[in-house]
């Protein structure tokens, strides 16, 4: 038992089926009589639809129906919604222009859906989709935020003048200006946070199904939060009662945020299935994924940091333009606001902070939460400018950070941007990271690299994130349309095995193992006797799903609460069996005992007694199961320090990541192996952003130039070094597990660490992500030209 509980690197229970090809994904499901949907998509970034001719398509073999936006409108289907209303500087709600599930009069990005063919086979659906003729009045598109905000720029929506979704601010403007007025030194930086495509291995997929006999609608879909999808479909899109709609998200092969949202294609499957009374399936191909999965990041930022003569931070101001894409996606508005500006204190005691954010519509794929969601963007700004400040002040970057850290004895720590940090040991993480990376020996390594003609650089990132999203009342006051608690249910079977139902949803995180470890540890049930059930609204209690590194901190805490209820009831049964008073019954790791005696009863016997209650307390209900809902008291604040070291080949501009140290504080760790895996994956994604990845639109035509893996560069194993991962453990004081969350940390920390290393090697801050060989080479060339001119 001891090697299966909390703190043990138990092998993942789910991996056997995944690595033997026995995972069960949405596209693996086929329903009797199933039809296939294929979308006709806009080839233009911006155009008025003059007419659509579907006559030829309707006559093609196998075609059951061809629908356009007008058909959807006739059925009075609601558009796609944004579930978080941000209010601007004046208190006005953001602009959320209507987003129809099939475009009606305008298309606003390449890939916008114009019509759908439903046919008996996918091939026939695709053939017919190609036969649809659309007459467009092509308009001039705008793809970047800077251009979109200029006077006279094309307007993506008539009801969003100047392409402005909102002009929002946060923090104390006057106090920040006062801090700048007394500053001895101000460091300024301009940054672009590049747009990313999520690229989960499994593309999106859905099957809509309707049974007229029971008036039951079932949706199989690739979702990180099936109940949220049910809520949106019922309450906002179709006006259906929730008890008549079942959403099933089986195994989901990665999401990184992109499978949180309610999309047009899945919604069309549900609508068409109800209309045709036949199952309708759609599975995205890779090109469609690039065109329609919500993208991430895409910020343009100017930031200024005010310091006193010793480098103590006095004030920080940030001005960001955030690209929303063509429509406001499900949680898009929250990402560059509450998930961003509230993290701008970083790990530091900066007393005055002010942020202004303009959210902007463009003729591009909608942008929403992507691994880290706002927090990587905040960390990137903070940690790039801190590093730049250290260089300007000629203070060692580690030392400058140390001078400004929130000290260990200051927790809980109220930042000037609303957050109350729960716990942390920032200097300890830094010390450990410097030691593990042999920071002191860097100068010698740099000199050795120079002998080989290589430019070597080192970069730090001391990140913080807010996870365990979130106290419902807090997010409600900030505009969220939902509560962000989590649910759990523990159901014992008579023979002692256990079902754990969770409202969280695993799309790769290993919940089936981690959650089972918690239950095993708390209730003394062997791991193999525990089945974690998730992803079906008909099986599990209402839950909020998995994102924002919340599943363990919120969902795990709910499981702990449910376990406590099981133990409470178990004590009553145990007291009866051992003929003792309930107050005299002690419980420890699956065994009930009478204090001061050798009497004991194991949990399995309690379960059996609960279901075969022949000898049972008279006033107690039979059965052994418990539900719990957990609404956190605060966010959790994982933090840590990453150190990246690079070598640049100045002949080609190729950057090699030669060393990586991550020291993270995730609070208590349930499964160190899974956590380390999360750190590895996160760093890989962060290195991808900094070095390789970037969505590129043609500025004139608005065409997506990176619509395949031939042009969108994903990190591969040989792009990455072997990581040195260290952990320190400062428990979260406000949840029963003491955990903080780990899923996004690597992606948050890595870009700044890596870019700080690259800018260190190059000796200039002026390079944007991704630092591709060509981009690095151009910087080196301009430096060579400048040197030659001197």
């Amino acid at each position, binding site marked *: 038992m001891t090697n299966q509980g909390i703190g043990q690197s138990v092998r993942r229970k789910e991996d056997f089926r995944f690595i033997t090809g026995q995972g069960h994904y949405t596209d693996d499901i086929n329903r009797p009589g199933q039809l296939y949907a294929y979308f006709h998509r806009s080839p233009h970034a911006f155009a008025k639809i003059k007419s659509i001719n579907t006559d030829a398509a309707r006559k093609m073999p196998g075609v059951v129906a061809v629908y356009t936006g007008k058909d959807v409108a006739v059925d009075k289907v609601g558009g796609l919604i944004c579930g978080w209303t941000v209010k601007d500087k004046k208190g006005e709600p953001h602009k959320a222009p209507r987003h129809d599930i099939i475009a009606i009069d305008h298309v606003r990005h390449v890939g916008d859906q114009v019509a759908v063919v439903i046919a008996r086979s996918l*091939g026939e659906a*695709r053939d017919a989709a*190609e036969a649809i003729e659309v007459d467009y009045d092509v308009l001039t598109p705008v793809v970047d935020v800077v251009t979109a905000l200029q006077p006279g720029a094309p307007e993506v929506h008539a009801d969003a003048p100047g392409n402005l979704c909102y002009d929002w601010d946060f923090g104390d403007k006057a106090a920040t200006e006062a801090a700048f007025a007394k500053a001895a030194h101000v460091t300024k930086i301009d940054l672009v946070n590049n747009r990313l495509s999520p690229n989960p291995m499994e593309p999106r997929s859905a099957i809509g199904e309707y049974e007229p006999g029971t008036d039951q609608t079932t949706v199989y879909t690739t979702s990180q939060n099936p109940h949220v999808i049910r809520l949106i479909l019922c309450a906002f899109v179709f006006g259906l009662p929730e008890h008549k709609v079942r959403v099933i998200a089986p195994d989901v092969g990665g999401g990184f945020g992109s499978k949180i949202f309610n999309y047009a294609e899945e919604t069309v499957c549900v609508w068409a299935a109800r209309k045709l009374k036949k199952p309708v399936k759609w599975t995205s191909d890779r*090109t469609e994924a690039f065109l329609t999965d919500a993208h991430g990041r895409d910020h343009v930022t100017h930031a200024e940091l005010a310091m006193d003569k010793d480098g103590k931070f006095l004030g920080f101001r940030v001005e960001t333009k955030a690209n929303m894409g063509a429509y406001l996606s499900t949680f898009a508005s929250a990402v560059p606001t509450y998930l961003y500006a509230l993290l701008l204190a970083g790990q530091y005691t900066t007393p005055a902070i002010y942020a202004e954010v303009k959210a902007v519509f463009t003729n591009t794929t909608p942008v929403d939460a992507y691994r880290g969601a706002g927090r990587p963007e905040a960390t990137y700004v903070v940690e790039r400018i801190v590093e730049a400040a250290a260089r300007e002040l000629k203070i060692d970057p580690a030392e400058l950070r140390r001078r400004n850290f929130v000290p260990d004895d200051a927790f809980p720590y109220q930042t000037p941007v609303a957050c109350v940090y729960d716990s942390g040991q920032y200097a300890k993480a830094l010390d450990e990271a410097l030691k593990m990376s042999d920071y002191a020996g860097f100068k010698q390594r740099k000199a050795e690299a120079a002998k080989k003609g290589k430019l070597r650089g080192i970069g730090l990132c001391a990140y913080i994130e807010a996870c365990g999203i979130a106290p419902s009342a807090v997010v409600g006051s900030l505009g969220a349309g939902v509560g962000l608690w989590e649910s759990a249910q523990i159901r014992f079977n008579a023979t002692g095995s256990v079902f754990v139902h969770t409202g969280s949803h695993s799309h790769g995180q290993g919940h089936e193992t981690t959650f089972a470890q918690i239950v095993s540890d708390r209730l003394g049930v062997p791991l193999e006797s525990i089945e974690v059930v998730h992803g079906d609204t008909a099986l599990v209690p209402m839950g909020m799903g998995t994102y924002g590194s919340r599943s363990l901190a919120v969902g795990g805490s709910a499981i702990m609460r449910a376990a406590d209820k099981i133990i409470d009831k178990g004590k009553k049964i145990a007291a009866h069996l051992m003929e003792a008073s309930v107050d005299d019954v002690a419980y420890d790791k699956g065994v009930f005992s009478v204090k001061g005696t050798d009497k004991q009863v194991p949990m399995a016997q309690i379960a059996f007694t609960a279901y075969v209650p022949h000898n049972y307390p008279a006033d107690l209900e039979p059965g052994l199961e418990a539900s719990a809902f957990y609404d956190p008291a605060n966010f959790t604040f994982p933090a840590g320090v990453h150190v990246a070291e690079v070598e640049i080949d100045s*002949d*080609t*501009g190729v950057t090699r990541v030669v060393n990586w140290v991550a020291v993270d504080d995730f609070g208590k760790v349930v499964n160190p192996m899974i956590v380390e895996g999360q750190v590895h994956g996160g760093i890989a994604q962060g290195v991808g952003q900094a070095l*390789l990845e970037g969505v*590129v639109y043609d500025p004139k035509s608005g065409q997506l*130039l*990176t619509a395949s*893996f*031939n*042009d*969108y*560069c*994903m990190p591969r194993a040989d792009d990455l070094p072997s990581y040195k991962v260290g952990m320190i453990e400062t428990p979260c004081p406000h949840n029963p597990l003491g955990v903080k969350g780990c899923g996004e940390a690597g992606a948050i920390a890595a870009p700044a660490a890596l870019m700080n290393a690259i800018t260190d090697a190059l000796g200039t801050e002026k390079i944007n992500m991704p630092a*591709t*060989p*060509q981009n690095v*080479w*151009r910087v080196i060339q301009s430096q060579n030209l400048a040197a030659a001119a001197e």
Partner: protein
Amino acid sequence: MYAFNYHRPKSLADAGKLLGDASDGKFIAGGQTLLPTLKNRFASPSDLVDLTGITELSGISVSGGTVSIGAITKHGVVATSADVKKAIPALAHLAGLIGDPAVRNMGTMGGSVANNDPAADYPSAVLGLNATVHTTKRKIAADSFFTGLFETALEESEIITKIEFPVPKRAGYEKFRNPASRYAMVGVFVAETADGVRVAVTGAGPCVFRHKEMEAALAKSFSPDALKGIKTDPGKMNNDIHGSGEYRAHLVGVVAKRAVQNALG
């Protein structure tokens, strides 16, 4: 993918006839370019005539200072052939750099050369080694085989049967990969052959080409330093989001030096 008729003939004569009879037929060998093209519906041939069943197109032999490689020989076979490694190690090395193991176990030399993708590796070896392309109709010298972007001297229904590579005194290949696709963004094959030094550049321009200035410099002194200061015209280079003409022109110089270094061992 659109529907097509599939044929797998046993002889070259049958292959030619099948293609001739098809309304819009295409030969397919390893299919590593053609299959993705079909899957994306960028092509819709009426018939595919699969050449991989024709045994006379396979095999590697070395004799009289010539390495002869059958057209349907897979990249993985060339990469691991003891004969090729011994006679022209740079050619085996190049084959081992193509794609990934899956591609190398399907893709064929004849298919790659006939397709003449501007970012393919083999064309640089064919041109750099002054190889001779044997077809069902004739022998074509490397210098007149590659005629432009995805264009070759091959006629309709003409099939490459084998390629003969004269064994050079020494040769080297260096490849700078496109970070995303991992195709050659610039690949340079240098060889000191019986007919002089040859430098063939792939990936950089619309079609593999010989770099005559570099050849002249290396003829005088076969060393990386001999290439110092030799410029490549950025205007003749490809230009895309991964590499401008300028960057590619610069890389040609860097990669060529490394290819020479590889040749020197």
